[in-house]
């Protein structure tokens, strides 16, 4: 391991990036753009879902439940009443859903049984149904805490985050998640392309004919992109704070550390891909399949991890985004200390070490 050679490779890569502003734009502007775009779109969708409420219990508990809906800004109670045909009512009254509280609601709570409520929604409007269900889930959690005073311990911590997003504001929850997904995609793509480009244009052959070793090459390649990645993090962070008024309640130093570990993990994954792929087109596809899809679908960003089949729950453990999401949501929404994030931080660090080592091992010093 020779630092001078690593620096030379990093410096050369930085020059490539300087000469090709597209990379820079993609790396820095794109994340901000995507966060703004998705943040705004999601924010608009989920506010003010009009519902009707049919309270057949008229008890203290049912009124508390209704007030939870009142407090949440996601739902507007457009109408209260008693309907025999909810479906027609939804159609005629131009509301999205009807909440039916059965007459034994309070009785069941007092007996310690799980009360059932009915939420009849217009399934044809996906844009509303999805968020509505997730808020409903949030309200359900609040309800368990406030109404059913049993000590409810969620199995997986991530569920409790809703509790700290008191207003159930979607952007609070979604923007930090979005941030991790976007950064992951950008960082994995950039590096996946950088080494495969050297294979593709044949320059790898020249690099290999020098005493350069794999670690120097890999670290030298990652370095400039991790700086760019951190810049992107900063911009996205500012966008989140200033553009979406998202509070940040945790410690910034931990946040930086988490961002760095997260980025390097994806950069290392990108490197592994570009070592294996040897052509930019293949590298691109592999980055999509191994980076984009799992990060999008399995990190807990869209589907909550606790509701996945057990196999996938275990699988998420090797995804840097899963841990990062956990850290970021904690830091944004909670006054979390080191104790609350040390385990995901450690997980990120381990993933990093494994990936860099895999990259080093995979990297043959010969042209096959």
């Amino acid at each position, binding site marked *: 391991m*020779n630092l*001078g*050679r690593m*620096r*030379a*490779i990093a*410096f*050369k890569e930085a*020059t*490539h990036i300087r*000469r*090709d502003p597209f990379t820079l734009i993609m790396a820095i502007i794109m994340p901000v753009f995507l966060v703004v775009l998705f943040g705004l779109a999601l924010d608009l969708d989920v506010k003010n879902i009009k519902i009707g409420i049919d309270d057949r219990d008229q008890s203290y508990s049912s009124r508390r439940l209704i007030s939870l809906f009142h407090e949440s800004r996601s739902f507007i109670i457009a109408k209260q009443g008693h309907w025999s045909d909810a479906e027609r009512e939804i159609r005629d009254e131009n509301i999205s859903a009807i909440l039916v509280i059965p007459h034994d609601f309070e009785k069941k709570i007092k007996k310690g049984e799980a009360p059932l409520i009915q939420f009849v929604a217009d399934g044809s409007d996906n844009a509303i149904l999805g968020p509505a269900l997730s808020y409903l889930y949030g309200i359900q959690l609040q309800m368990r805490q406030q109404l059913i005073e049993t000590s409810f311990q969620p199995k997986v911590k991530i569920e409790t985050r809703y509790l700290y997003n008191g207003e159930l504001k979607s952007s609070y929850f979604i923007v930090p998640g979005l941030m991790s997904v976007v950064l992951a995609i950008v960082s994995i793509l950039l590096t996946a392309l950088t080494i495969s480009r050297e294979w593709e*244009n*044949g*320059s790898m*052959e*020249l*690099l*290999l*004919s*020098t*005493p*350069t*070793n794999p670690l120097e090459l890999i670290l030298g390649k990652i370095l400039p992109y991790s700086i760019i990645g951190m810049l992107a993090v900063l911009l996205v962070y500012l966008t989140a704070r200033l553009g979406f008024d998202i509070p940040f309640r945790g410690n910034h130093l931990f946040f930086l550390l988490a961002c760095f570990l997260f980025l390097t993990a994806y950069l290392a994954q990108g490197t592994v891909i570009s070592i294996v792929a040897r052509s930019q087109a293949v590298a691109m596809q592999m980055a999509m399949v191994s980076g984009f899809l799992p990060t999008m679908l399995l990190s807990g960003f869209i589907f909550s991890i606790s509701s996945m089949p057990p196999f996938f729950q275990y699988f998420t453990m090797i995804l840097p985004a899963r841990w990062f999401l956990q850290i970021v949501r904690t830091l944004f929404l909670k006054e979390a200390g080191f104790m609350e994030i040390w385990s995901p931080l450690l997980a990120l660090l381990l993933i990093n070490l494994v990936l860099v080592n895999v990259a080093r091992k995979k990297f*043959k*010093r*010969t*042209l096959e």
Partner: protein
Amino acid sequence: MLEVRSLSVYFGDFAAVKKVSFKVSKGEIFGLLGANGAGKTTTIRVMCGLLIPTEGEVQIGDTIFGKNNNGNNNNSAELIKSRIGYMSQKFTLYDDLTVEENWKFAASLRNMNNGIYKKRCDYLNQWLSLGDRTKQLVGKLPSGLKQQVALAAALFHNPDIIFLDEPTAGVSPYARMQFWNLIKILASEGKTIIVTTHYMDEAENCERLSLMRAGEIIALDSPEKLKHSTFPHGIWGLAEEKIPPCLREEKTLSMWPCGLNYHMVTHNLAHWEDLKKQHPILANATLVAPTLEDVFLELVEGRSR
């Protein structure tokens, strides 16, 4: 200086190089000549430690490497990397970097400090016709100049052995001549040079040549000796319209068009004398000097079987 012993490289079942052996001594310009796909690049890659051969070994100085090296760190193929300079066929320089940036990069991969770098720059620049274009992007240079810059990049660390894989492909004849002058200067300084080409005229510049066909060396000697051994009875040239049709059927003679003339080679001297008596027109035939191209066509393409 460099010896290759019974080298074979297989890609799957396909033999790209078959039992190739040769020796190159210090200060020699050694050429590998062959058509596309003959195995020249593959042979060079093995000598540079970039490919592990299926069989055989390479010795450079006292360092031996071959199929037993698995391509990991600290093996002998790694040891020679500080002693060799390599110009590859596929890629020479980064087009989006300037000449200077390319050189700096090449030099820092060799751990060269600034002082030595400057000295080497001055030294190499005196041979190049680069002028003040060191700050230009390489992509903007004419291809002849680009090849010179690439050669210089391979020379920064002052290697003993220089491998040049088709260094003059796609370069104008004048620039090719300039490039070969550089190669000769290097050889006169004691550098060992191994160069591949498919330009016959420039192969004449090599002190020894190995002709490759389908992964095998089919002839190895100096250009002059190759010509002599391939055409021991010389090549006879005769204007086409004068050739009697029956001569074309003659089994002991190979015949091929060359410009306005026909060239003929005899495989049987006694018979040739007979033919001369039968066809007085043959007395007009003149002896022409064989070129490497003739040698190549004869041996590699098997023109006259």
